[in-house]
């Protein structure tokens, strides 16, 4: 029974401890891969993603295809064609399918594509851990693409250690992915964290709820008991990384969704008169409002009139963010960040709330825009009993460091 609406497709499994639930933006054969969209509600992929093949070869089984925001590009699963996933800790709040399924023990692991930070947010909302790996370490072959230059398949699990275990199975060079880095394997060894330094960027910790602020302070104190020094610093790019990422991600997503035109596969509207009608009606009827906004924003940013002002400018800002974070990582082993302003959104809060999107994106955009790894772990519960998570961002290919910090924190009893 799927009361919480975690699944688009639920599968029978033998052993939850070796079971993985898979976001429906990742292609699997023999069943639908819908990306939680009406556009692909009846789409059966002719091949499976590399990450799926690797897990299968290593003896894992799949608990089902889980619900996300449409195309994994929305802050709430309310935009899913199949309706929202309900948070297992409160029927009035939302979450994501995989994070919830893992939290309630359906499966030990979840594979989530982190395109716009939502995978990190849902993990935070459901009280689980999540690793977004360095861009290029996990193959994107077989992932229904939104933000090609930034998204990665990450792993959620009840602890960071478990997530890292699964990550080492799926990470590694894939000759089918031209953006895949050369290393054949990644082992994510846990290292000693005593003496490490964690930077706390003041600008990223603005706009938090009081509960989140409290729990963040508690988290920082906990790190210090582990021998980790935490220090505040200025992160200038915090203010503009989010807008730049919004431009880049909508431009790439808009382009990636162009193939959904009602001609070859997927949803085609009925009663169409001519080619343009097929295009317009099919896409208008099958895309959620959020996706339509992304398509419009992307088309605008790439148009002749705005290409330089928006898109090129965003690419340049990306370079500035890269430079500033590289500097920061000279001083710090990890950079701390909130995942969200507070705990899980109430139903209806985020659905058409553009301001919420703008303010929430701020926390996840830095790691997305430059493809650095980020680990989400839990700070504690707010007075309503809802979890609040926190992010540890690391430099490219320094996934082990941040995994180690999160693991040390979790081992010490959170």
């Amino acid at each position: 029974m799927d009361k919480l609406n975690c699944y688009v497709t639920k599968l029978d499994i033998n052993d939850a401890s070796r079971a993985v639930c898979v976001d429906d933006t990742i292609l699997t054969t023999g069943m639908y891969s819908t990306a939680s969209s009406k556009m692909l509600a009846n789409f059966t992929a002719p091949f499976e993603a590399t990450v799926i093949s690797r897990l299968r070869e290593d003896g894992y089984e799949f608990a089902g295809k889980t619900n996300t925001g449409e195309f994994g590009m929305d802050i709430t699963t309310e935009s899913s064609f199949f309706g929202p996933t309900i948070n297992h800790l409160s029927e009035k709040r939302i979450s994501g399918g995989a994070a919830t399924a893992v939290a309630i023990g359906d499966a030990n692991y979840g594979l989530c594509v982190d395109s716009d930070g939502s995978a990190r947010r849902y993990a935070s909302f459901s009280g689980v851990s999540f690793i977004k790996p360095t861009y290029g370490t996990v193959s994107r072959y077989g992932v229904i693409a939104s933000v090609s230059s930034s998204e990665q398949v990450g792993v959620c699990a009840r602890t960071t250690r478990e997530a890292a275990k699964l990550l080492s199975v799926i990470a590694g060079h894939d000759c089918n992915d031209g953006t895949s880095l050369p290393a054949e394997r990644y082992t994510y060894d846990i290292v000693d964290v005593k003496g490490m330094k964690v930077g706390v960027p003041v600008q990223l910790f603005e706009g938090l709820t009081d509960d989140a602020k409290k729990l963040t302070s508690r988290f920082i104190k906990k790190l210090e008991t582990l021998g980790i020094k935490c220090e505040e610093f200025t992160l200038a790019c915090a203010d503009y990384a989010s807008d730049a990422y919004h431009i880049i991600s909508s431009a790439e997503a808009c382009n990636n969704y162009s193939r959904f035109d009602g001609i070859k596969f997927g949803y085609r509207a009925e009663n169409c008169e001519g080619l343009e009608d097929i295009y317009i009606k099919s896409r208008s009827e099958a895309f959620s409002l959020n996706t339509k906004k992304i398509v419009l924003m992307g088309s605008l940013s790439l148009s002749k009139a705005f290409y330089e002002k928006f898109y090129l400018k965003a690419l340049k800002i990306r370079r500035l963010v890269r430079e500033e974070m590289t500097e920061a990582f000279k001083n710090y082993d990890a950079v701390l960040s909130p995942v969200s302003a507070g705990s899980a959104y109430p139903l209806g809060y985020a659905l058409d709330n553009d301001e919420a999107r703008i303010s929430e994106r701020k926390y996840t955009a830095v790691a997305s825009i430059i493809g650095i790894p980020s680990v989400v772990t839990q700070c504690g519960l707010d007075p309503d009993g809802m979890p609040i998570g926190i992010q540890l961002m690391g430099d490219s290919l320094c996934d082990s460091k941040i995994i180690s910090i999160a693991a040390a924190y979790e081992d010490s009893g959170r």
Partner: protein
Amino acid sequence: MEYEIVLGLEVHVELSTESKIFCSCSAKFGGDPNEHVCPACSGMPGMLPMTNQKVVELGITAGLLTNCHINRRNTFDKKNYYYPDLPAAYQITQFYAPICVDGGVEIETSKGKKVIGIKQIHMEEDAGKLVHDMWTDSSLVDFNRTSVPLCEIVSNPDFRSVEEVVAYLERIRTLLRFGRVSDCRMEEGSMRADINISVRPVGETKLGVRTEMKNMNSISAITRAIEYEAARHIDAIERGTEELVQETRRWDDILGQSFSMRDKETAADYRYFPNPDIAPIIISDEWIEKIRESLPELPEIKRERYIEEFDLPEYDADLITQSRTLCDLFEDTIAAGAAPRDVSGFILGECMNALNRDGKTADDLVFAPEKLARIIALVSSEELTRQNARKVFTAVYNEDVDVDKYCSENSLLTISDDGIVKAVVLEVIEKNPKIVADYKGGKVKAFDALFGQVMRVLRGTGNPTLIRELLNEELAK
């Protein structure tokens, strides 16, 4: 008022690769509809492009053959528009950093030599094909041609006549065929040209209104289209028959007219942006040098060399240098030991006859040059008569047989064994007393009759010199 026409060309050629540009589907021409298709070239989600290295190699080759500068840092971009033959609704092309820039091709016309400037060459993928189905009055999409690799060669607006355009197209075709970049068969669509044309009064430096005709696929149609369009422009200017607008027009070769299509120029905003799935391709100096070293000698150089070094007649040299394959065959057969004139004789004789009869071209030849050299050697050493050499060649041409094996299996080698021939001579003399008597009585022709009989018994493979010698010897007795 006298006008001059100003033309620019964008020539698309399909590259001679086994596979498509971003996937490993076959790039072969033809095939059943949607036979050479995979999720990548049919726009399925989840697919990623993997660049075919041979495509970059051929792009560099095309650049070197046309004296271009090779850009060391190449990127691919996405060109966005919606049409059913474009499965992902974008074409992967090179907009910002094409592989070659600033080249030139020398052409020769009745007015002399001239260099046509090449603005750039870029790599891109082809689109699919739409076929109209009469029965259901619908369009059917065939993705076989989607993602077939193309080079687009963009010229400067340096042409001033139809003759120059034709000379340029033929020169590009020769260069690219020689470099094995493309087989440039316009009739198969592996070479297409977009013509940009405008007119202006002689002496004027500003360019006139430009119209474009796309996907022209025969030189004669291009000639007719340019002549018509130039006249239409001049008419519009002189007599105000219509207003000239910058637009793409459709050339109808049957009606001999151009027609306005939807005004695409201002409407099209392709929203080019760099393809994030393909890392920039950095071309090393070493790679360029390696390709430069493997470039073929150009046909005009070969022609001179064949005439001087091999003493070939001009006519023969002209014919052989039409085709890189024939040149390779010619040179390799000589390298295997045959005399140049003998080789050219065979190539332009037996070889071309067979190809023409079968409607094939030199690229369809299946045998190795060593075999041709062997046949020629056997003829030179009188082990094969010319007639039998033709038989052997036919077998080699059709089935690539082993020359010596075929000769012995079919008893084609000239028999020069004294003992065998003498035995037959004696036999023929014995069996034909009347003819022998005629010969001895003065009838010279009787000798030929006896000769013919001996040859018949030997199935045409008797060494003629030896037969004559032995016949004379025996008849003298």
